C-alpha cells in the first residue's frame, strides 16, 4: 500500500514517452516494477479514476493520467465525484472536498453579478 509508488508510476507515465509505450503494450510489466497493492493495481489498470483520487493521487498527476486514457475533462471530474460516493473520503494526501456548486451554476452566478455591475 503506497500512495508514493502509485504517484511515482503515474509521474513516469506522464513524463516519459518510453514508459508510456511500454505501459500501453504490456502494462503488467510496468506495474510489476512498483510496490503496489492489488487495489492500487486494479485502480491503475481499469483505470478507476475515482478510486485513484480517493487513494490520494495528486490531481496534477491524475488529470494527465486521465487524459492519457482519453477521458474528457467533465468525465474526469465526474469520475472523482463518483469515487467519493463509492469509496468514501480521500484517504491520504492533500485533498478534502468542500461542496462546490459546479462550474455551470458558478458561471451563471458570475454572469448575473456582471450584469448587475
Amino acid at each position, binding site marked *: 500500500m503506497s500512495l*508514493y509508488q502509485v*504517484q*511515482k508510476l503515474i*509521474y513516469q507515465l*506522464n*513524463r516519459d514517452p518510453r514508459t508510456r509505450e511500454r505501459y500501453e503494450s504490456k502494462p503488467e510489466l510496468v506495474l510489476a516494477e512498483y510496490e503496489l497493492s492489488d487495489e492500487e493495481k486494479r485502480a491503475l489498470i481499469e483505470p478507476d479514476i475515482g478510486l485513484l*483520487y480517493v487513494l490520494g493521487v*495528486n*490531481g*496534477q*498527476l*491524475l*488529470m*494527465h493520467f486521465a*487524459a*492519457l486514457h482519453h477521458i474528457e*475533462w467533465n468525465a474526469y*471530474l465526474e469520475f*472523482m*465525484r463518483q469515487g*467519493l460516493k463509492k469509496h468514501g473520503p480521500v484517504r491520504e494526501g*492533500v*485533498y478534502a*472536498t*468542500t461542496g*462546490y*456548486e*459546479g*462550474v455551470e451554476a*458558478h*458561471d451563471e452566478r*458570475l*454572469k448575473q453579478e456582471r450584469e448587475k455591475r
Partner: protein
Amino acid sequence: MSLVYCGACSHAPGITGRAERADTQTRQALHNALYRMGDEIRAAKPDALVVVAAEHFANFFMNNMPAFAMGMADSYEGPIEDEAFLKIKRTRVPGNRALSRKLIEGVMQTVDVAYAEEWKFDHGISVPLHFLTPDYDLPVIPANINCQGPPLAPLKRAWAFGEALRSAIDSVPERVALVATGGISHWPATPDSGKINAAWDREFLARWAANDRDALLSYTDADTYRDGGQGGFEMRTFIAAAAAAKGAKGRIDFCEPIPIFAVSCTVATMQLGA
C-alpha cells in the same frame, strides 16, 4: 539596475485547454491583458525572461524535491502535457545557459537553489509563454518553487528567493525580465475544480500591489488551505515576484474569476522605477 520588468500572471491549463468553454468576452479580455503584458515585456528590451513558476510534477517528484530550482540549459522543451489536452504545440524554447549559471551563482549567495540542466516545461510556463512570447524568440530561464508536494518552503523563504533573484539579476549586465506564474485560490484537478474565492484573491492582490511584505507573509498554509485550497500554495511565486520588485508597487491589470479555467485569472505588473 538590470531587472527591466517584473510581473505575475495565471498559468491555469484551462486558459488554453478549455478556452472555448469560457464566456467569450471575459476570455478575450484576459487574452488581451496577457498580450499587453507580452508587449510591455518586449518594450523593456530584455535579453532573457526569468519565469518563476510552480511546476506540477513535470520535472520534480517526491523522490528528490527541491524547494527552489532554476534551469541551466541553452534550450528547453514544452509543453510536456498532451498537445490535445493543453492545445499548445510542443516546441523548443531557447534558454541561456551562461546567464542561468551567473544568476544561479548569485542566488546561491543567500538561497540554496537546485539547478537543472534538463527541464520540461509544463503548463506553469507553457501557458504564459503562449501569450507572452508566442514566437518563442526570447531566451527563458525557468525557476521553480515547490508548491505541490508538502512540506513546502515557508513564505518568508519564497520572499528570500525573490530577493536573491533580484540581487543576482542586478549583478549581471544583461537586461532581465521576470514573470511569476500561479493561481491564487483554486482547487485544481479535483471535484472542486472551478471553485474560486474571489474576495480572498482580491485581498491577496491588494497586499501584493502594496508590496506589503508583512501582510503577504502573514498567511499560514492552514489559512491558505482553508480559504484558497491547496492551489493557493502557489502564492509563493507571487510573493517571490513582490520581493524581486524591491519595494516597487504593483498594478492589477486584470483579475476576473473564470470557473472553467479554475482561477481568478490575473495579470499584474510591478511598476519598477515608478
